[in-house]
């Protein structure tokens, strides 16, 4: 309840006039950094690359795809369920449920869903997709219908590079006779994704990464991800030739990600989009080379107005194949419409109920996530979905190793002039979960809201990751690299745990905080105490710049087994 209250208070004051979306991308010779696009535009919106230009009302006959966020009548029970399913003291601990059970227990009844669908059909709103967890409906209607039904006006804009998109003026109002089933309208804009890039020179290859983060002892025990499936959320089309080139460069086994297209999949072959997908897949593969990679790809908002992230997570939860999902994109939480956050969060909670750990990049603008899109926006802000209380938020560090790759030290990633750093700060939408506790968590900046990041890893482009994209070896950084690194490390830990008779890891945040708060024979985290993320300092214990710190993966694997066997 507290969570909702904070959300409502914030959104009431914000007026939801703006939405900025960023996707972490990597340029051809570059580092992954967040990318932006305005979602609900207002005259005050001023992006780094200039304000989008209104070009008139959307043609009423234009077909628009968007999402309807469904009411979860069992929300209170769901909250209790999610608390219990991750509480080792609860009889329900790790009794995960699949998507259909989630829908049956917490979602609308079938008759209620059918009535809503029929009501929508009468207004010429066609349902194009649904999920067994009953979190949302993917729908399609003309702009004229949307304007009339939801009391707003869709307008067209021309953004950077001349790309056109639509976005609503005004807030969608759900018709009274739909409110028992529909709580919000999400994804009514399709702002194009813009890229940004910085340069780097020397990168960290798989051998260095495995040495620095103590993965080699697992590899020596043949723990390389066998039997694990990692979902990568992508809005760009990776290049198989790049993955092959990466594997050949570093002597890795070849990998062909399994295509898990959502809503028709992505065909975005812009260099920045491809580079992001390449980086995610390559980092995950180099850390867990035997894990199966599931490429959950969806059109970016250019091709579909539907809230793409929520749709992808719903599909991951419905499929139930992957136990780990990595997300390298996000939006400025402070400017993301409440409807979109709610739509995404319901999907995330369904995934958590199924025992799926979702990891999300915390953003690349330090404590000022919204500045990624608008240089003049100096609000302390965090990235969505990284700020979800059911996501493992992955922040950024600058890593230093010896010439032989041995871990030498790490600092918070802080690039003042470049306006970059590891994302971290306080969520405006969510209260601090009960499990987010331990040394350093309650500090001078705490105010009861969700604190991010949870963990961190190398992200500074100057100590960045080797990546192969556009047919060439390059270096990439950003929390876009740190998130798949942590995802793949989690896959290794899951395999190690399985070999030691331990069940599925599930949503790992409560366990990680508990491990960090308890003295361990094998310390699992490098506690980073130097640097800032442009505002919040790295300190002893948890901090807003690096969370619990970066992992010693082998030690963490041992600690996880000990934790789950206790």
């Amino acid at each position, binding site marked *: 309840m507290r969570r909702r209250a904070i959300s409502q208070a914030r959104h009431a004051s914000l007026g939801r006039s703006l939405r900025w979306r960023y996707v972490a991308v990597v340029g051809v010779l570059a580092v992954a950094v967040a990318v932006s696009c305005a979602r609900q535009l207002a005259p005050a919106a001023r992006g780094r690359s200039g304000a989008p230009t209104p070009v008139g009302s959307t043609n009423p006959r234009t077909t628009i795809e968007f999402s309807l966020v469904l009411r979860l009548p069992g929300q209170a029970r769901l909250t209790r369920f999610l608390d219990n399913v991750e509480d080792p003291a609860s009889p329900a601990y790790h009794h995960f449920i699949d998507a259909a059970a989630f829908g049956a227990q917490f979602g609308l009844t079938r008759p209620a869903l059918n009535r809503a669908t029929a009501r929508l059909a009468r207004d010429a709103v066609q349902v194009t997709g649904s999920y067994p967890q009953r979190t949302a409906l993917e729908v399609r209607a003309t702009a004229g219908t949307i304007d009339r039904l939801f009391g707003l006006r869709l307008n067209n804009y021309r953004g950077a590079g001349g790309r056109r998109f639509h976005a609503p003026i005004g807030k969608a109002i759900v018709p009274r006779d739909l409110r028992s089933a529909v709580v919000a309208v999400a994804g009514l804009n399709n702002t194009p994704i813009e890229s940004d890039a910085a340069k780097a020179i020397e990168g960290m290859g798989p051998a260095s990464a495995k040495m620095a983060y103590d993965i080699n002892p697992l590899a020596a025990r043949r723990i390389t991800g066998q039997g694990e499936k990692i979902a990568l959320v992508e809005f760009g089309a990776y290049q198989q030739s790049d993955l092959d080139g990466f*594997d050949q460069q570093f*002597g890795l086994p070849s990998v062909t990600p399994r295509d898990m297209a959502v809503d028709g999949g992505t065909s975005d072959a812009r260099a920045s989009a491809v580079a992001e997908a390449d980086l995610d897949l390559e980092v995950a593969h180099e850390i867990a080379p035997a894990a199966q990679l599931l490429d959950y790809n969806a059109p970016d908002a250019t091709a579909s107005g539907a809230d793409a992230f929520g749709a992808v997570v719903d599909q991951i939860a419905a499929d139930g194949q992957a136990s780990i999902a990595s997300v390298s994109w996000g939006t400025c939480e402070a400017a993301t419409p409440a409807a979109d956050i709610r739509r995404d969060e319901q999907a995330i909670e369904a995934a958590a109920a199924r025992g799926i750990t979702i990891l999300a990049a915390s953003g690349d603008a*330090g404590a000022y996530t919204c500045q990624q899109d608008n240089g003049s926006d100096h609000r302390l802000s965090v990235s969505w979905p990284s700020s979800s209380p059911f996501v493992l938020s992955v922040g950024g560090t600058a890593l230093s190793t010896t010439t032989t790759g041995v871990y030498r030290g790490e600092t918070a990633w802080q690039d003042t002039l470049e306006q970059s750093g590891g994302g971290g700060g306080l969520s405006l939408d969510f209260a601090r979960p009960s499990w987010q506790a331990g040394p350093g968590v309650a500090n001078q900046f705490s105010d009861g809201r969700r604190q991010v990041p949870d963990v961190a890893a190398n992200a500074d482009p100057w100590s960045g990751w080797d990546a192969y994209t556009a047919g060439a070896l390059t270096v990439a950084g950003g929390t876009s690299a740190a998130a798949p690194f942590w995802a793949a490390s989690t896959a290794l830990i899951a395999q190690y745990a399985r070999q030691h008779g331990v069940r599925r890891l599930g949503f790992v945040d409560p366990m990680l905080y508990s491990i960090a708060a308890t003295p361990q024979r094998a310390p699992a985290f490098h506690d980073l105490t130097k640097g800032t993320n442009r505002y919040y300092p790295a300190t002893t214990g948890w901090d807003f710049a690096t969370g619990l710190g970066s992992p010693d993966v082998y030690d963490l694997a041992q600690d996880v087994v000990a934790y789950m066997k206790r």
Partner: protein
Amino acid sequence: MSVFVGPRASRGTTGSLGGKIVHAFLLVFLLLIGLSIVMIVLVAPGTTAPCSSGQPCGAPPSAPAVIRETAWRSSQYGFSLDYPGSVGTVSQQAPGRLVLATKLDGHSATVAIQGLPPGTAPSQAIAEQVRGLKGLSQLARDGNPAHQLLGAGVGYVSGAGRAYVADLTSPQGSQPASVVSEAASNGHVTVTATVVGASSESGPRSGLYALADLIINSVQWPR
């Protein structure tokens, strides 16, 4: 095919000594070409046999250093710093001052690190440092809020930061320049770091600023 035009034309002279020499030369020449082709095929990275699933496809390269750096220490103030020698070269140095010419992707900027006596406030240090810059005209504070330095400092010690605009003058003419300066003090010494570059080449997300950040963050303070 044109390679063989010459040898074919010379067949009429096979009986002569000169012809034998030409033949022998061509034989050796062709042999060398053949060997070269074999070597190229063997070592070219793009022609490595594809890796089969589940099997390593070659010896992994040795782990490289993540960042290769060159160290510099101020003999006057005792602070030190590192810079990547591959993209930064020393253009001036004195016991308390180092000026680096940095170049990345064809773009260049100057990074000046200056030590000052203890007691010099960071904001005062920036003002002094910027006033002393040569080759600039029309220097003024940058009023663009997007260029404001958030979280300024040196060597992970919080301090002050300011952005300026100016004209960079040279014999070829003048061009708009960006000047950013940060300073911090640890009580024993104040250190300023000032970056000057053409506006078209430097600025946030230019890569050059990331390089400057790397150098500025590397400052080690004297104890």
